[in-house]
């Protein structure tokens, strides 16, 4: 009987096995890293219609977050300030600045500035902003140190597993409610005991049910 296959084909099974292992592991690794929101979403930094600097306002000038984002403690949705809020100061401060042309235009016409949303939550995930602040979760836990950002960027993946990480163990993120906007807050030495106390007092029980967020 003549040989049908050349001799090198004897090595084929081993080569195929190696290829499957290498490319399989490579493919999994590629998706694991590049497919994760830690890669695809973190660092999203859109250019806003007005070159507003959070570093200048919240950092150097020390303004509280709630001066502009005024409803974050009361509303399910964190609000972006109206043009009028900007003009509270900017009628007097730098009234002629070129950077503020879009703001003055909006003020004159009554047409809102179209800020670009940085933190995009999917519509099928229910999220209540005020609940988290009143539980004592600091801004910095989700948004990063805004006071140091020239241009705001997404710091956390906002993936479901990221949400669940905190819902399963909120302790390291809890702080007194009057400290939530403080970007330089140092947790007390007995953070664990403090967290236990807060959870007890407020009856905090972060949901892990599907229907907690997917309502």
């Amino acid at each position, binding site marked *: *009987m003549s040989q*049908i*296959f050349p001799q090198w084909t*004897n090595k084929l099974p081993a080569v195929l096995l190696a290829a499957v292992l290498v490319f399989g592991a490579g493919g999994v690794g590629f998706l694991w890293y590049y*497919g*994760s*929101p*830690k890669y695809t979403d973190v660092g999203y930094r859109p250019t806003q219609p007005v070159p507003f600097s959070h570093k200048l306002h919240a950092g150097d000038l020390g303004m509280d977050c709630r001066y502009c984002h005024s409803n974050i403690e009361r509303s399910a949705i964190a609000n972006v300030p109206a043009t009028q809020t900007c003009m509270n100061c900017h009628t007097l401060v730098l009234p002629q600045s070129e950077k503020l042309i879009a703001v003055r235009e909006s003020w004159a016409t009554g047409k809102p500035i179209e800020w670009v949303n940085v933190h995009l939550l999917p519509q099928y995930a229910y999220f209540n902003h005020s609940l988290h602040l009143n539980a004592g979760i600091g801004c910095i836990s989700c948004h990063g140190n805004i006071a140091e950002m020239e241009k705001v960027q997404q710091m956390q*993946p906002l*993936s*479901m*597993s*990221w949400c*669940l*990480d905190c819902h399963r163990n909120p302790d390291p993120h809890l702080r007194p409610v009057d400290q939530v906007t403080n970007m330089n807050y140092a947790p007390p030495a007995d953070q664990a005991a403090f967290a236990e106390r807060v959870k007890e007092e407020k009856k905090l029980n972060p949901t892990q049910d599907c229907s907690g967020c997917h309502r």
Partner: protein
Amino acid sequence: MSAKVEHHPETLIQGNPKFSSVTQHISQIVEDKTKMGWILLFGLSASILMMLLGAVGYLLFEGIGIWGNNQPVSWAFDIVNFVFWVGIGHAGTLISAILFLFRQKWRTSINRFAEAMTIFAVICALLFPSIHVGRAWLLYWVMPLPNQMAMWPNFRSPLLWDMFAVGTYFTCSLLFWYVGLIPDLATLRDRATTKIRKIAYGIFALGWHGGNTQWKHYELAYLILAGISTPLVLSVHSIVSTDFATSVLPGWHTTIFPPYFVAGAIFSGFAMVMTLALIARKIYKLENYITLNHLEKMNKIMLVTGMMVGYSYGCEFFVAWYSSNPYEQFAFINRAFGPYWWAYWTMITCNVVVPQLFWSKKLRTNLAVMFVVSILINVGMWFERFVILLTLTRDFLPSSWGWYWPTIWDGMTMVGSFGLFFTLFLLFLRFLPMISMAEVKNVLPQADPHYHVADDHNADKSVKPHPKPGIEPGTAMGGAGL
């Protein structure tokens, strides 16, 4: 049949073939020019398969709403057809694994295509839950894969057990079938006359040359796979039954479900093997390989498993009465005398009454009778799952009672799954040896090492010895199976 056979009722293969004529006969089916009849049947099956693809395509585009499922019957034809097809698969595993371990040599004539039938039936079965999930592109969610949603399958859900059970079942059946095919694939490779056939069969024969060491490893591998597959015969349909039994619905929440489902699965599986065997043996003239003896044995198994199924039907009624649970009692009375009474009595007729014909030797050795009965049994077993499903139409609260009727898309998907099954099966008949040549040679009288000296040692002189056929000296494949 010739008079020779009359003398040797133990002979499994009739016509007293030589090793080489077995190879010749079975290989020729694959090697001959494609017959017109095959082309016509394949065209028909493939057209029905196209209808399935259309129905599934529209389902993916439009959603589950095109089916008749709606509260309170939240799953319907999808689960019925799933259980139906998984059940059919069981005969293949029983024949290939359990009968192998029990050294039932008559299995060799039917195990190859029973196993093929298993694999194709499981493919049809897997289709239904895959499209039932609605978003078929997210099907990988049923697998425990680490992901950025931190989502993990619900291990308390029998639907997840299904995924593992049927997945394991498919993998094991496929391996078992393929390992069994290797010696025969090598035969086809060695007989191949065209380059393409040589290469194609050559690849899948994995370099088999029929040497002693290879046979030793092969038989051990086959034995191990039989050992692995044996518990699957019992476990797979038990787990499928928990889809129903772990719910708290009267009529479903019973411990009899696992054994009852397994018996039904083997029952329907043998019926399907019978239907296919009768057709194949007629068309490809395999009467010497699949003898009346084989068919009768399968009929006896159907009689036994049919009685088990009948006993389960009776037991359900008994327990409903004995439990004094009014909901349980209502569920069964409603089955038999409610709005779907016709489905129940079709089931009873086909599954319990009809197989009783096989008590008569005359009837269970009559080809026409067994063909009709085998088809009726599968109709009955389909209705069994339909009847179980319809329990959903009337549960605790009369205010939430409902009605179920399939839509055209349900029907097209169900009929289409038969197209998928027969397309695959016809491809198998055309391109692979439908009877295991190597194993059949093993049960020929010549394969007995004492065959040549049988005359001298045979105590019973009244039995005429076999006429000795010439035995081929070992070509690469000639001695295969020894």
